[in-house]
């Protein structure tokens, strides 16, 4: 639950001199800086107009930011509005903001005027002078706001440090004469850590602290002491208290010091109570008598006692506390909180919002179904224990306490030296065959073996059991594989099926290779790749005799011989197959000019050796693509006065 009013976000307000530096250097940074008399006059004018306009806009923007960020007194909660009035003087505040607003308008009009004059500037000098005059006048306007700016900066710093009081939440306000123990009480109920000193007006401003009660967050406001005099004579410090009392719907704790150690008589304190009573109207009020360690209501003079009792009318309750002895603090706090809470609930019930919630709330109460009694189930052990407690018997258990029935771990801890000292006994509840073993020390490793590996006591037994089962299963023949029994017919079918599968696989692979989408080998390359073996194999598969084809192919690779020396059969075949060759035979150029296989291998090897280093270092070789010159001189030299460089 955070406060709605956060004044911490207001940007710092620079002093007048810094303000000027900020704006002018921004102009210098963000507008062009180079202009020459040789430029066209329109360009020169535009250059200076831009400067003037930019400066004016920057001033405008900065002032606007200040004007919007500072809270408008009419728009904040009356508590804050009044507090600001007390602390900073409403008139002064409004005046400062008003002057800034006027300055903003003045600067705007200066900017407008000079831009208009610049339109008639006929030389660079004149334009520059006009710009100079314009900026100078803006600066003068700003310099006159020196006091307003420094005042607003102070206000900002102070505002940012105001305690964040939420005016609408549950609040306790502590008030009373100076030095009656308000801050001491505050320190007791919250963690605010307010300064407490034995002199009057130690607390000079509002302090806020937070506490929890009934799972709700409460804020406690410590106020400066109030003296009993008319409102007009009150100073700023007192007025802060009055503001808090007047505007916050809270529970009021009015402190009186019966011992009169504070330096004010009981009579004074009671008369103050009566004079500021109008501020307590409709608020739960507590008359708190502090410092009861020194003096209580019974010790004071009867007439003073009478006065105090007279002050307690309806709506006002009486409490006693001593911050020194810490007595009565919680009671006072609880009473104040309860009364405020009750009042807030009543207010909510009266309001019109509640009906929207109430008609959605339904408390269902089931009716009786039949006459059967269905009581809550209470375990017998619990019943027995209850019985024992009622009887007051210490019980038969050895861990029983006379108050709680039994010794708890918590009690043991207290006995054993409290938290941090006491070690919880984890072994106590081990379930072992013999209680004597509970605290036995078990070594982790014995004879180089991990004890945990041998922890199973009946491992032998289990192993024997397993083996027996295995034997039994083996005897039953679970693991015997069935006899091979395949006749001739089945074998043949299987063989065929295997071959069909193989063939299918090959077809699939070939079709994959011939897929149109893949990069294909050219016909030439294909011809080079296919061998005579492939061909003869193919013929064999088709059931033809490949011998003749083999012969022909062999001859093709051989040196040409004399025609007389050839086998006549071959000669015949050749003459019959003299039909034109579809494709000329391609020779592998990499092996051309090499004498034999050995030299080919040697060449291959030396080639790969020479390329090895290059490949290892991933160097660009001479075969890699390279751009020799990225910016060829002939394409980039020369003037380009007009037109493009397409002509090059």
């Amino acid at each position, binding site marked *: 639950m955070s406060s709605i009013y956060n004044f911490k976000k207001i940007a710092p307000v620079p002093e007048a001199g810094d303000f000027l530096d900020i704006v002018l250097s921004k102009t210098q940074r963000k507008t062009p800086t180079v202009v020459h008399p040789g430029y066209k006059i329109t360009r020169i004018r535009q250059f200076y107009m831009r400067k003037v306009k930019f400066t004016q806009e920057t001033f405008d923007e900065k002032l606007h930011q200040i004007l919007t960020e500072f809270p408008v007194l009419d728009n904040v909660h009356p508590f804050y509005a009044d507090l600001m009035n007390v602390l900073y003087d409403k008139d002064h505040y409004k005046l400062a903001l008003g002057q800034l607003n006027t300055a903003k308008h003045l600067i705007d009009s200066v900017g407008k005027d000079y831009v208009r*004059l610049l*339109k*008639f500037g006929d030389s660079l000098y004149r334009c520059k002078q006009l710009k100079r005059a*314009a900026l100078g006048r803006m600066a003068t306007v700003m310099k006159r706001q020196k006091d307003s700016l420094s005042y607003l900066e102070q206000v900002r710093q*102070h505002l940012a*440090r105001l305690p964040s009081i939420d005016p609408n939440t549950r609040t306790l306000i502590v008030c009373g004469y100076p030095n009656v123990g308000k801050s001491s009480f505050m320190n007791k109920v919250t963690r605010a850590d307010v300064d407490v000193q034995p002199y009057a007006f130690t607390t*000079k401003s509002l302090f806020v602290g937070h506490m929890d009660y009934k799972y709700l967050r409460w804020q406690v406001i410590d106020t400066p002491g109030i003296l009993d005099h008319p409102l007009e004579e009150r100073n700023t410090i007192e007025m802060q208290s009055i503001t808090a009392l007047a505007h916050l719907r809270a529970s009021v704790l009015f402190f009186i010091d019966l011992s009169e150690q504070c330096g004010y008589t009981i009579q004074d304190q009671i008369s103050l109570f009566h004079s500021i009573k109008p501020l307590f109207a409709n608020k739960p009020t507590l008359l708190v008598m502090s410092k009861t360690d020194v003096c209580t209501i019974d010790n004071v003079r009867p007439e003073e006692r009478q006065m105090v009792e007279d002050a307690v009318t309806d709506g006002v309750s009486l409490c006693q506390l001593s911050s020194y002895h810490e007595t009565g603090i919680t009671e006072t706090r609880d009473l104040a909180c309860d009364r405020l809470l009750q009042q807030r609930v009543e207010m909510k019930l009266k309001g019109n919002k509640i009906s929207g919630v109430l008609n959605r709330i339904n408390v269902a109460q089931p009716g009786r179904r039949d006459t059967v009694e269905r009581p809550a189930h209470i375990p017998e052990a619990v019943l027995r224990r209850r019985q024992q407690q009622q009887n007051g018997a210490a019980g038969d258990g050895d861990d029983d306490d006379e108050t709680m029935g039994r010794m708890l771990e918590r009690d043991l801890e207290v006995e054993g030296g409290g938290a941090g000292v006491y070690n919880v006994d984890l072994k106590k509840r081990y379930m072992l065959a013999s209680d004597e073993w509970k605290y036995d020390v078990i070594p982790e490793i014995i004879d180089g073996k991990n004890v945990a590996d041998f922890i199973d006591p009946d491992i032998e037994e289990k192993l024997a059991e397993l083996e027996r089962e295995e034997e039994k299963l083996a005897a039953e023949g679970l693991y015997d594989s069935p006899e091979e029994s395949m006749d001739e017919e089945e074998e043949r079918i299987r063989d065929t099926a295997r071959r069909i599968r193989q063939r299918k696989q090959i077809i699939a692979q070939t079709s994959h290779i011939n897929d149109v989408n893949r990069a294909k080998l050219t016909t030439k390359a294909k011809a080079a790749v296919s061998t005579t073996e492939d061909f003869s194999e193919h013929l064999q598969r088709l059931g033809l005799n490949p011998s003749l084809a083999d012969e022909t192919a062999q001859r093709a690779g051989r040196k040409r011989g004399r025609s007389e020396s050839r086998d006549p059969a071959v000669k015949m075949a050749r003459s019959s197959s003299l039909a034109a060759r579809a494709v000329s035979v391609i020779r592998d150029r990499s092996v051309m000019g090499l004498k034999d296989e050995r030299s080919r291998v040697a060449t291959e090897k030396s080639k790969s050796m020479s390329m090895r280093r290059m490949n290892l270092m991933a160097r660009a070789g001479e075969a890699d693509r390279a751009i020799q010159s990225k910016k060829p001189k002939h394409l980039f030299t020369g003037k380009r006065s007009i037109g493009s460089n397409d002509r090059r």
Partner: protein
Amino acid sequence: MPQNEYIEESIRRHGRRMDHAERKRKREARQVHKDAEFAQKVHGLKAKLYNKKRHSEKIQMKKTLKMHDEKNAKQKTDDAVPEGAVPAYLLDREGQQRAKVLSNMLKQKRKEKAGKWNVPLPKVRGIAEDEMFKVVKTGKSKSKAWKRMVTKPTFVGDGFTRKPPKYERFIRPMALRYKKANVTHPELKATFQLPIIGVKKNPQSPMYTQLGVLTKGTIIEVNVAELGLVTTGGKVLWGKYAQITNNPENDGCINALLLV
């Protein structure tokens, strides 16, 4: 102390560190060196601003020093002879006078000398017509060039109506028309913003006077009713002459000196 002033609260509770005073003194002593170093290192606009600041500080310091010197310096005077019987050991003492009086006298003399001329700005820069007027081309094909636009600030009377624009030779733009001048009274040393009544004389040319052009050195008549000046006869003055002392076209305002 308000709740959220953490720093002050901490100082109040725990005090400052032991060597706080020493550190502070040292930091202050170091500051001058740091400033000097910064002044040498800084450049650009920042340098300009910074040097200006330092310069003005220095001048202020020198002035203060000088003022103290002036106060303390003692000079001989002949006339201030001690009165009555003087002991022998004081006989050769001469009267003394503070230097301050002398410097005041010098100032007075200078002022009198300055008052010799009857017009504050006796000489003016000549302004050629082509600087004063801009040629406005007219006609359907912009071939005629007989129109002129006045590019200097002007004063036009209250009841001024333009001639029919078609035949108007001299255009005096609205943006450059002025009604008020910042007039300084040389004896009162005070400046007032006064309405202009008319242009008495523009030293450049009688034509400019006619057109009401306001340039440096122009004599204008201003309404001094609000100053409450009276003649020796007891009549209330309301119109007085003043001379323009700045270049209105460069400054965007008219500053004038009242001729008394």
